[in-house]
């Protein structure tokens, strides 16, 4: 069930009405309803993988209690590694088996051996990377004694399976979400209106910007050999906005939906394309995953509290793992490696925490220095996205080498360029709105809130009409495949 589908448009109001009216604000009933609706939501993708979700939930619930009750560290470690091993085992089998088997066989072929490990003809269960990381954060927090175990299975299951975040995050923490699941929730008017506004903005980003950009990006990337360097730059830019609006649009809808149920989820995006350096970009892009890796991988490895070489090593590790998390393809690993390279100068010079606030805070325009810094960071990001989008690493290199050819200075052209012009124009308006709203949770969080109701509503109608008239052909959310 896609967020931008008719099914969800029917499913969501039903759950909303039942949640606030039929449960009579009884917390237990509310949580049962959330769990049932979350399972219905997940089963609508593929009911056959329900067992995996339920098993993973039960595993972490059970091992969590065992870790807490263990009398010595050895036992704690046993239960912790059991949970980690099984969770990562599932992830390994469903997501990475074919990649490892093919890569290993290829490696053996290189040294003169012939090997065929076969391949698993299984589809990747939707959201497996997300709910596995939910569960892992829970058991790791228990081991570190940051939390106590949740003994009510329903409450714990809601934490893992809450439908707005189930298939593409944000990757929640028990310390943040579980207390909300356990606390009595009252309807809050302004919170609900804010949630609806964020959903509207998320739908606009996904349906108008991402879905349209996807069409042009696909045309250009899939036929890159036939296009000029300038067209390939345009293709990379289309993908840059596609992936941002696709994923942040999804996150906006997820956050808005959760807010309508009185639950606040972790913020996942904070205007990353307005970053002044790569370190800032990574504090603003897929925040819940970046912070997960920081807390559960980077810091346990020693973080930045060790020597410079360890710091460099740890940085490379988390970027490579982060790349690999996205998918079983060398393109993601190269993308992660490239980002590690980008961030390295600021790690070595210890300037990675230089830009902690938003650019040009309290001002309308940035300074020239800020503008150049944002522009440069954006260019680096666009370059890295080429690896992320390419079919394989050789394709990415062919794509890049064609960009840096004489045809870079020709006028871009591809089939359907005429229809792309309005989308480029709308994307321009979108960037301006994002810039104006960059100090808030999402771009239109404050825009128009103090306007007269008719003007404010006219703005909402305009966004709805834009969604209606400029909708691109429906595309799967990119991050569902991760």
């Amino acid at each position, binding site marked *: 069930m896609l967020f931008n589908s008719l099914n969800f448009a029917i499913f969501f109001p039903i759950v909303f009405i039942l949640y*606030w009216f039929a449960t009579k604000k009884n917390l237990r009933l509310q949580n049962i309803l959330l769990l049932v609706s979350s399972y219905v939501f997940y089963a609508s993708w593929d009911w056959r993988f329900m067992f995996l979700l339920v098993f993973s939930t039960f595993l972490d619930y059970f091992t969590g209690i065992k870790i807490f009750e263990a009398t010595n560290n050895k036992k704690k470690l046993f239960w912790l590694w059991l949970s980690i091993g099984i969770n990562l085992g599932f992830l390994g089998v469903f997501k990475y088996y074919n990649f490892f088997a093919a890569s290993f066989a290829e490696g053996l072929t290189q040294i003169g051996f012939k090997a065929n490990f076969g391949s698993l003809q299984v589809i990747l269960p939707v959201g497996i990377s997300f709910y596995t990381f939910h569960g892992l954060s829970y058991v790791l927090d228990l081991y570190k004694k940051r939390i106590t175990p949740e003994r009510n299975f329903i409450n714990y299951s809601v934490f893992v399976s809450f439908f707005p975040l189930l298939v593409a995050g944000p990757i929640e923490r028990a310390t943040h979400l579980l207390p909300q699941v356990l606390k009595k929730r009252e309807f809050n008017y302004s919170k609900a209106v804010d949630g609806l506004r964020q959903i509207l903005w998320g739908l606009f980003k996904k349906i108008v910007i991402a879905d349209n950009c996807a069409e042009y990006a696909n045309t250009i990337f899939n*036929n890159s050999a036939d296009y000029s360097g300038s067209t390939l730059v345009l293709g990379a830019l289309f993908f840059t906005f596609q992936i941002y609006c696709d994923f942040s649009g999804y996150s906006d809808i997820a956050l808005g939906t959760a807010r309508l149920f009185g639950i606040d989820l972790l913020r996942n995006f904070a205007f990353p394309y307005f970053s002044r350096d790569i370190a800032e970009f990574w504090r603003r892009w897929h925040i819940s995953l970046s912070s997960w890796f920081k807390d559960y991988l980077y810091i346990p490895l020693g973080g930045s509290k060790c020597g410079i070489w360890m710091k460099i090593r740890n940085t490379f590790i988390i970027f490579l793992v982060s790349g690999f998390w996205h998918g079983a393809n060398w393109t993601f690993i190269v993308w992660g490696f490239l980002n590690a390279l980008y961030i390295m100068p600021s790690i070595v010079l210890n300037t990675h925490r230089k830009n902690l606030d938003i650019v040009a805070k309290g001002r309308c325009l940035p300074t020239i220095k800020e503008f150049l810094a944002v522009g440069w960071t954006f260019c680096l990001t666009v370059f890295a996205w080429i690896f992320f989008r390419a079919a394989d690493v050789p394709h990415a290199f062919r794509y890049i080498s064609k960009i840096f050819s004489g045809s870079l200075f020709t006028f871009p052209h591809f089939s359907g360029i005429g229809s792309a012009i309005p989308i480029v124009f709308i994307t321009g308006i979108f960037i301006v709105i994002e810039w104006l709203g960059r100090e808030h949770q999402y771009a239109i969080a404050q825009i128009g809130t103090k306007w007269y109701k008719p003007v404010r509503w006219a703005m909402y109608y305009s966004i709805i009409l834009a969604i209606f008239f400029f909708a691109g052909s429906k595309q799967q959310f990119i991050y569902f495949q991760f």
Partner: protein
Amino acid sequence: MKQFITRLINFSLIGIIPLLAVFSTYLYFDPFKVLRHYNDYSYPYVIPNRDYISTTMFINNYKKNNYNSFILGSSRTLAFRPNSWRVYLSPKDTPFLFDASNESIYGIYTKLKYLDLHKVEIKNALLLLCRDASFSNTKNHKGHLFIKHPATSGEGNIAFQFVFFKAYLSPKFLFNFYCYKILGTYKPFMVGYIENRKITYDTLTNEINVIDQETEIIQNPAEYYAKRKNLFYERTGEKTDSLQRITKKHIFMLQEIKRILNKNNTKYKVVLSPLYDQVKFNPSDLSLLKKEFGNNLYDFTGKNSFTDNITNYYETNHFRPRVGDRILKLIYK
């Protein structure tokens, strides 16, 4: 909560009332002729969805006429008249023009699949493939002019109808449509929305006749082409398409088409359109098609007697029935 629900209802109502008003006019006019039943779709004043018309005509008339011979392809099939084709078929055969605007291999495949699934006899088939259109798509179109009939695409009827209502809601369409309704006549700015030509569709064979264009050429060819001098751009000789357009998905569909035709023992011919641009089919694509269809494939692309003669064309996209007649004569000799 009460305040939230009330405001949400108010917000929705204010948005829905104008929408309902527009919807009622849509129901009343049925501009694309997709809501009600029609026996004859001739003389459309709004550019129609040819796929819908062809498929509907087939569904409505199949039991009565027992069609067993099919011409499949894009709007360029208007040059291949079922009545001209009939000459090369056996007397009992009943041909039907099963065309669609901008028809892709996906469209041809789904139509044949539909016929096969419904156990319709496919005794003869004439497939028209175009270098620029047939292999541009591997799935259903999203635009209202090109989206496939739910019967062949297998997609939902509501979603199909929604595409047309959405097209009607487009400000450009509404403007042109109501200008035409008020003025009662075609104006140049209505191009792309309102049909300027007098077109008839045979209620038996679905044959297309562009009456006024054909009459104008016959009566005064010099004037017809002089008026459209700018349209017929200068060509610089034969070129070859460098772009390989046939992908794995297309190959699958071509194989399926061949399988269905073989299964039905169909006598079939595959014609590559003589396009005005004189661009030859991509050699790799051509060899792929030859591999699938062998001697049943006839290539008229590039520079030849059909494409050299400007008077063979209505405009740069569509060739005249006399071209179709001559091609039929050649391939059935």
